[in-house]
């Protein structure tokens, strides 16, 4: 067992494509680290460098304190679970799981013992003599896990292991993998593009974009205090509402959406570096669950909105709202790698399933005053003081 350290690791492919750019990350022994990001963000390349399947352009990568930049995959003592499982088709489940042990010269009885132990953990005991093709998707996934755990390696590397499973099985295996990882206490690097997997499985989550590490934190910190607009928009489903707004200082600090305004609680001026002076733009962020509908009465600090769309999910309704009289309504523009460049002044709110809201209704909403987020309008960085 060991810890893993990326120090300024960079990978440049032919054609000068910078897949991973100056990645520094430490995975503690026994930690479950999730690398998450949109496709092409460099997360899989980072994992493959750790496995030794890609060489490292610059920087240093160490496992258990030993720099492994030039160590062959077979000598790194890491186990990897592939997206397509990569089970050896002509070998039985038992042979698949015992292959690494056989190469390492274990005796037949030792191999059989370790394989049957791992099979018991994974509920695979009755399938040991089958070939992979005679297994279901979920069982194959378990065999791939089994192949990794029989070796008792220094680290587990998992490359989107659940993406080929159906939704229900994915939820099941999510819990299963997390359980096994806790049971064995082996440092794990888990790559996914699914932010729900990232949130539910990781001790810590590293969000990547365009080869660069955006933020690495516990799931809750990532959700509560995203370092930039990208992380805010990537984590959470539906994502955080990000609204382009103007700060107005004339009548006490407030945010201006066209003709409507919301006062900023005074605590934010000490916790955040808000632009001073009159009129500079910011990106204001608010999570859908922090957009609260005001039924009647007190209208202070509320915004008038119109219901554009409603999506009933059973347990809740997602309501898409547009600000009434908001000037300069812009359309959604999305960057190449999925990051939102500009957003319209619409937002999503979560409402109870029995609220009889209909498209076209006018609603008064209030933002939870403890949950405001501010991002730099130019760079997208959080304005929160660290």
């Amino acid at each position, binding site marked *: 067992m060991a810890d893993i350290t990326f120090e300024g690791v960079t990978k440049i492919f032919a054609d000068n494509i910078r897949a991973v750019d100056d990645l520094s990350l430490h995975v503690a022994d026994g930690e479950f680290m999730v690398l998450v990001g949109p496709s092409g963000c460099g997360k899989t390349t980072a994992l493959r460098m750790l*496995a*030794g*399947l890609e060489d490292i352009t610059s920087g240093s990568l160490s496992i258990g304190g030993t720099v492994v930049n030039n160590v*062959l*995959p*077979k000598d*790194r003592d*890491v*186990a*990897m679970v*592939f997206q*397509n499982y*990569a089970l*050896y*088709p*002509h070998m039985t489940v038992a042979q698949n799981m015992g*292959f*690494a042990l056989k*190469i*390492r010269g274990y005796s037949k009885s030792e191999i059989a013992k370790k394989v049957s132990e791992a099979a018991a953990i994974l509920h695979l005991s009755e399938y040991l003599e089958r070939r992979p093709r005679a297994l279901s998707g979920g069982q194959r996934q378990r065999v791939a896990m089994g*192949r990794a755990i029989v*070796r008792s390696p220094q680290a587990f590397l998992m490359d989107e292991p659940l993406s080929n499973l159906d939704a229900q099985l994915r939820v099941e295996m999510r819990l299963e993998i997390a359980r096994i990882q806790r049971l064995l206490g082996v440092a794990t690097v888990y790559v996914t593009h699914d932010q729900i997997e990232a949130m539910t499985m990781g001790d810590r989550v590293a969000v990547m974009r365009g080869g660069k590490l955006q933020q690495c934190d516990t799931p809750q910190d990532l959700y509560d205090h995203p370092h930039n607009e990208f992380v805010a928009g990537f984590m959470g489903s539906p994502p955080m509402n990000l609204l382009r707004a103007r700060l107005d200082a004339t009548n006490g600090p407030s945010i201006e959406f066209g003709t409507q305004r919301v006062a900023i609680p005074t605590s934010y001026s000490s916790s955040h570096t808000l632009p001073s002076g009159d009129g500079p733009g910011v990106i204001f962020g608010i999570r859908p669950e922090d957009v609260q509908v005001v039924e009647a009465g007190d209208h202070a600090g509320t915004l008038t909105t119109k219901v554009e769309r409603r999506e009933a999910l059973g347990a809740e309704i997602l309501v898409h709202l547009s600000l009434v009289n908001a000037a300069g309504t812009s359309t959604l523009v999305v960057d190449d790698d999925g990051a939102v460049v500009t957003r319209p002044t619409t937002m999503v709110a979560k409402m109870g399933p029995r609220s009889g809201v209909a498209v076209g209704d006018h609603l008064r909403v209030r933002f939870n005053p403890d949950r405001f987020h501010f991002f730099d309008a130019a760079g997208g960085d959080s304005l929160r003081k660290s």
Partner: protein
Amino acid sequence: MSTIRVPTTSSRWLTLKRRRQIAGVIFALPAIALVVCFIGVPVGQDVYYSFTQWDGQTATWIGLSTWSQAIHNPNLWTALRNNGLLLLSVPFALGLPLCIAVLLHQRVAGWRIFRTIYFLPTAISWVVLGLVAERFFAYQGTLNSIIHALGFSHFSTNMLGYQSEALVALGITFIFTMVGTNTMLFLTGLATLDPTLEEAARIDGAGPWRIFRSITLPHLSRFIQLAFVMTVIALFSALFSLIFVLTGGGPGYATTTVEYLIYETGFNQGDFGTAALYGLILFVITGIVGVVQLRLIGSNE
């Protein structure tokens, strides 16, 4: 509004299952007819003529005497022995392309050019290949020029001229003609190998040789079996043009195979009855090879 047709007596007899069976037979009929016309009838004729003395025009029934004559003809046994010895070239006709394909699959520098070079002979007529080989092995040919140039003049050979060596030259030429096809077949097989399997094996601790043995070779087994069948069948039934150009079956009968013997007996000696019998023998041999091979492939999975 649509109405459902009440089944009449005839359509009650025509159940869905029966209709499918009838359709199956109808669709298979043209293929069956072709097989009977072009394989069944000629084989039947061949069996018939093997009991006759036939000069190409009149066939006289002589019963089993063709058979007893043939069995006592040493040339048939020589030809069979030559075919047997040529089987020794099969491992090379498979092994060499396997090595080439694995190397090309590693994307060695210039692999596209090499691929073309290795495949090119496949597009050339075996008659031409035979002529090239003849020039290569001839006493004043390329092989001896090379031996001279290297300064080993006392090793110079005349492979096509000696009974003991001509068959080796034929075997080498045969390997050469099969390299292109088999290399392509193995390259196709390698292209269907999931590269993550190799990566998984590398992480599992396997070196290049272990990966070849435990991952690549099992994956290629079906392709190797196919190449084996094709190579053996070619050896028995497609060598004629090579032999004709290269040695004409000689010296003596040193490079005469059963296939060449059929031509020799029928067209040179005008004994079509015996030739028909040899054809029958060749048919049985290739048939056995095919059936054994199908059994092997079938028993595998």
